[in-house]
């Protein structure tokens, strides 16, 4: 059997795997957006200024 051949399990669990994949992708997007907001916010800027002074 070739290592590249897809097992029947892959087809059977395609929906579940797709759901998990999309959920993880959405989580990454959310964390990225949250990070941008946090580092752009005044709190973060003030903290950086205090560190530099």
């Amino acid at each position, binding site marked *: 059997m070739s290592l590249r051949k897809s097992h029947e*399990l892959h087809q*059977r669990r395609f929906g579940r795997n797709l759901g998990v994949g999309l959920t993880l992708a959405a989580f990454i997007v959310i964390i990225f*957006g*949250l990070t941008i*907001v946090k580092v752009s916010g005044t709190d973060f800027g003030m903290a950086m200024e205090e560190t530099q002074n």
Partner: protein
Amino acid sequence: MSDASINASTLTAKAPADEASFGDYFALLKPRVMSLVVFTALVGLIAAPVPVHPIVGFCAILFIAIGGGASGALNMWWDADIDKVMKRTKGRPIPSGKVEEGEALALGLALSGLSVIMLGLATNWFAGAFLGFTIFFYVVVYTMWLKRSTPQNIVIGGAAGAFPPVIGWVAATGSMTLEPWLMFALTFMWTPPHFWALALFMRSDYDDAGVPMLTVTHGRRATRTHILIYTALLALLAVGTSFSGIGGPIYLTVAVVMNALFLRGAWAISRRTEDDSEADNFKVERSFFKLSLLYLFLHFGAILVEALLKPYGLGGWS
């Protein structure tokens, strides 16, 4: 061991008919309960007097919802034995054999940890800790302890479902005042009449499962009286909230109308005999239960409208 032998020996262990889909795992999170959590937490967040960045607000609501979902999964893990018995719950993923109990436990614990940490990072650690306490309260205090040991299970356990607007408020402000606790009290006092009405027309379910609902331990007549008493207290609280910082003329109008209807329903339930209810298949109890859903939605909706109008000088009493 070759790749082929791994496939052959382990990966086909489960028959396709039993296999859980992504939707079955999602169902473990009790999406309908989650929608109530999302809505009330959103109202708490928006009604708070501190503006929140939309993305931070979105994340706060999302992680509160995930925390609520995690509680649901842990509840289904613990209650799998009685869920099998009750008609209302036997189609859930664990009793139907699609998801194993251990999977629900793992999902619940993982999402609990994730939601608490992420809410703490996204907003503040007070909100994160409060979410953690809420999960603990629902799973340990309500599900594991009270639900099977006291007819007051719904009353005290209802607190868990009432915390989300407080968490939303704390996520925005980092502190607590009277107003979020009024929202808490509204849901807390609403929960018993809502569930007791359900218990009146789903009675065999709780009997069969041995859950000591008030209908089972104190009888149906006492339950009807309890519904009326709690509804009267709820009406006082709901109308009184109109004159707090989260109330206003719109909220007052909604509260007066909805509480008049709710009191009328509770009065009708208290006057009915079992024969009356059996004769029309619990029509009054069922309509009271449906009205209770609208009741909570409209009260929180009115608080939301009052808060959204405030920037334009229209919300509240000022």
